[in-house]
């Protein structure tokens, strides 16, 4: 990894602007420690973001947690680590090497240090000893041992102990036992550090006021909550990393949020299916029956759903599919992030199909798209994909609070008994697939409708406007063209891209999703360090709206930044603007880690030179 020296601030102190990486063994409970640090810093008012880089395994393997602290609010992953906390003998060598020159290593003092460095500060921590003294039951010893580094770090860089207490209080939901046990040990460790370590490094925290009005949330929780506010009624799911926690969290919030005000009973049915084929099958059944219905999956799950999604597309069944993308192809890197399912979803099933995609950038948008997705699905009567990813889904994001849905539910065109009667009176013919309004979206009825003409027969085979079986070539073409019309109309209905401009921009950048922080930061560097102004368009949906075309048209050169190998979003963009396809350049990397601003900047600079 590239090593760069941190520009020191005045007096040599580096305040509120560095990264910490904690290297531990998974399954040892270090997640609690890491979250505690992150949350305490957040509560100090300092912008902070934690990212968990973990293995596909339950216990015993190396795992890293990186905490980005940035007074300027740049919260993307960085490649440089000013502070490394080393707790794992298996990785200690790499961990030492990973500290940037001038940086700091905290290490458990029972680890043998295979190399020495004199360009960094090294602090030992008596982890085992303090854990033993903590009085924690032997079973919990390893677990609480991780609190030692919280305490030592707190003392050395100045994390407010009150905020640590608040973080623990939150984590343990106010349960005094664990709060006191952990806090006690943190305090002891801090005290030990105070007495035994001499601060020699420049890194310090100082309280700010930059996190007020923000919350910390992971995208899967946000998505779950969004869906619950969206009135989700049916969830068919099958466990898969990193999507599982989306529905698991939802299940936990159901009793809290979705008790029917009238009967006091829950209004969400969540079924763990036997696999993804059944999960999406149930979801489609429920969507067809008039329920707000969703599934959530990743990787292999999306591939397995292809056949069913083609049925939903052609039979026009509204459902919502969350794809919390992970490293692929195949089982790939199941605990790492990627944006690799874009083209697959765009061409998800046999024959001509199209896919509506919403692309959230963080937990806050995950919440928003969580409820909006149902409106689009029911409005358009088609599957709507929300393309989240592991970084959004599983990491804590500092975001604006969730906002109550700003619009009432749009249930789309559903006809009940009285509507059909009205239509009959008006002499209007109803056919399930009849394009009455000219917008490509027909009216539907759902089961339980007792009007004798309400029923129709749904099938994935050729059918006419009245849902009758048909092999007629003209009927087939007509129906498929109408369905295409829905897709075309969706362009201007879906969330519009977000555009940021600068005076005299040299080129445009197009990106989406969790790349946003890194791009914001890269643009900042490009401007500040290189004097290069850039414009930026963040896609929020597919198919693309006119703004996207205009943005491309108004730039001579555009870099499409994404987290995969093949530049998948660039491909979709190129297909959309064939006359401008050669203006779009791919800045793509899919190695399982979130993109960094430096990599984006450097890659673009290299390409600019070519």
């Amino acid at each position, binding site marked *: 990894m590239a090593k760069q020296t941190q520009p020191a601030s005045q007096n040599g102190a580096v305040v509120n602007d560095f990264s910490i990486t904690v290297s531990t063994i998974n399954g040892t409970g270090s997640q609690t420690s890491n979250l505690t640090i992150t949350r305490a810093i*957040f*509560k100090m008012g300092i912008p902070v973001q934690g990212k968990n880089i973990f293995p596909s395994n339950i216990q015993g393997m190396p795992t890293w947690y990186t905490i980005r602290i940035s007074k300027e609010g740049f919260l993307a992953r960085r490649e440089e680590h000013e502070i490394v906390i080393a707790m794992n003998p298996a990785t200690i060598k790499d961990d030492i090497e990973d500290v940037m020159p001038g940086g700091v290593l905290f290490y458990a003092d029972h680890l043998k240090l295979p190399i020495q460095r004199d360009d960094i500060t090294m602090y030992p921590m008596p982890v085992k000893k303090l854990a033993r003294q903590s009085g924690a039951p032997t079973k919990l010893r390893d677990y609480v041992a991780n609190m030692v580094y919280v305490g030592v770090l707190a003392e050395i860089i100045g994390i407010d102990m009150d905020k640590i207490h608040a973080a623990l209080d939150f984590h343990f939901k106010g349960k005094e036992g664990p709060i006191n046990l952990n806090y006690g040990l943190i305090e002891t460790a801090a005290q030990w550090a105070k007495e035994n370590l001499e601060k020699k490094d420049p890194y310090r925290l100082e309280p700010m006021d930059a996190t007020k009005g923000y*919350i910390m*949330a992971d995208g899967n*929780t946000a998505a779950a*909550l969004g869906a619950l*506010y969206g*009135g989700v*009624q*049916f969830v*068919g799911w099958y466990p898969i990393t990193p999507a599982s926690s989306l529905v698991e969290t939802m299940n936990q919030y159901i009793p809290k*949020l979705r008790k*029917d*005000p*009238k*009967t006091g*009973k829950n*209004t969400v*049915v969540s*079924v763990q*299916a*036997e696999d993804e*084929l*059944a*999960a*999406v*099958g*149930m979801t*489609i*059944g*429920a*969507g*067809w*029956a*008039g*329920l*707000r219905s969703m599934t959530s999956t990743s990787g292999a799950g999306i591939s397995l759903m292809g056949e*069913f999604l083609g049925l939903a597309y052609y039979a026009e069944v509204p459902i919502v599919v969350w794809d919390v993308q992970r490293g692929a192809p195949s089982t790939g890197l199941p605990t790492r992030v990627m944006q690799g399912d874009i083209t697959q979803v765009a061409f998800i099933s046999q024959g001509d199909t199209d896919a509506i995609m919403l692309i959230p950038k963080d937990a806050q948008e995950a919440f928003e798209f969580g409820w909006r997705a149902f409106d689009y699905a029911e409005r358009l009567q088609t599957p709507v994909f929300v393309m989240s990813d592991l970084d959004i889904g599983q990491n*804590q994001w500092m975001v604006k*609070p*969730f906002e*109550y*849905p700003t619009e009432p*539910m749009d249930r789309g065109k559903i006809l009940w008994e009285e509507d059909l009667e009205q239509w009959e009176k008006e002499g209007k013919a109803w056919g399930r697939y009849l394009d009455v309004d000219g917008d490509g979206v027909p009216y539907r*009825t*759902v*089961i*339980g*409708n*007792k*009007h*004798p003409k309400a*029923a*129709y*027969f*749904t099938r*994935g*085979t050729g059918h006419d406007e009245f849902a*009758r*079986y048909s092999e007629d070539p003209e009927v087939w073409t007509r129906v498929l063209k109408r369905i295409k019309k829905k897709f075309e109309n969706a362009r201007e209905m879906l969330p519009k891209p977000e555009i940021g401009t600068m005076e005299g921009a040299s080129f445009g950048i197009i990106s989406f999703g969790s790349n946003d922080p890194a791009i914001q930061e890269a643009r900042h560097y490009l401007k500040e360090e290189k004097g290069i102004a850039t414009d930026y368009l963040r896609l929020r949906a597919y198919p693309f709206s006119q703004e996207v075309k205009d943005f491309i048209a108004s730039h001579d050169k555009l870099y499409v930044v994404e987290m995969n190998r093949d530049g998948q979003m660039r491909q979709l963009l190129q297909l959309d603007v064939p006359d401008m396809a050669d203006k779009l350049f791919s800045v793509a990397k899919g190695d399982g880690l979130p993109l960094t601003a430096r990599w984006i900047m450097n890659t673009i600079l290299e390409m600019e030179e070519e």
Partner: protein
Amino acid sequence: MAKTNALGLSIADYKGAPTTLCQGCGHNSIISQIISAVFEENLPPEAVVKFSGIGCSSKAPTYMLGRSFGFNGLHGRMPSLATGALFGDLSLIGIGMSGDGDSAAIGMGQFKHIIRRNMPLVYIVANNGVYGLTKGQFSPTSDRGLKLKKQGVNPFEPVDVCMEALASNATFVARTFAGDPKQVKTLIKAAMHHNGIAILDIISPCVSFNNQPSSTQSYEWGKQHEVLLHEMQFHPDAKEIQLHGEMKPGEVREVTMHDGSVLVLKQVERDYDPTDRFAAIRALEEAKEKHILLTGLLHIDTERPSLTELYELPDDTPFNRMPQDRLRPAPESIQTINDLMF
């Protein structure tokens, strides 16, 4: 004037599009019995929802109950579609039509798991031991030793649909024969009143590809080898039970369904207790040894809660009619939620 039922509907109100199945296909006879059963049960056609997979058998829903909603889904995936859909309105009765290929080959997983969940559904396997729609390949229920035109000889032991259902603890398992329409109809009626999964393995000959008399799924074999486990009468209302004709107390068993309707089983050879799951397994084993087509209600369990019950949904309104204000949390709640974040 056409006969009408208690709702004033005639049988025509229960028909579907004209069949495009082969003349004589067993599936056509199942279709007729479903139509009659729903008609005679005085159910409005709108109260039934039809589901199917892919196959000749799975086309059947088109040819019945034109006034019922229907979803002809994907090969082997009827169970999942039905599961999701029926939550839309729990007052409706689901009838799923599937084939032996559809349920025992590609659909084996969903077949087993809808049973495990005890999802209320009349699940019919129209079992002809062959792939009809794709023109005569072996299915997992084909007889061992069966010879088919382009396929050679089947070397595999057939899947026994009822045995599979029992192994998965199905709460209603019956085997019957499209050549025995009365029994088919009675079982369909009972199945519609069952609160849980009702597996009906209906031997339904494919006249185009597997009706040679040596095949255990042919009409001829069925006619010659059918043995009744019991004779059956179904009474939607317990009060109307009159032990017709030759039925004497002591020789009959009454199975009271979840909704109070009663299935009366008259002893034929021996007293058979369909609530004893193990007895059902034994009966199947014996039938196999004796090389007979044993038909009737093999097993019933009226106690186990069904999947839909587990969720305790509001029951004042069908779920798919629930208004917005009962689905979206109140505006106040958002503050609480944000406070729960950090």
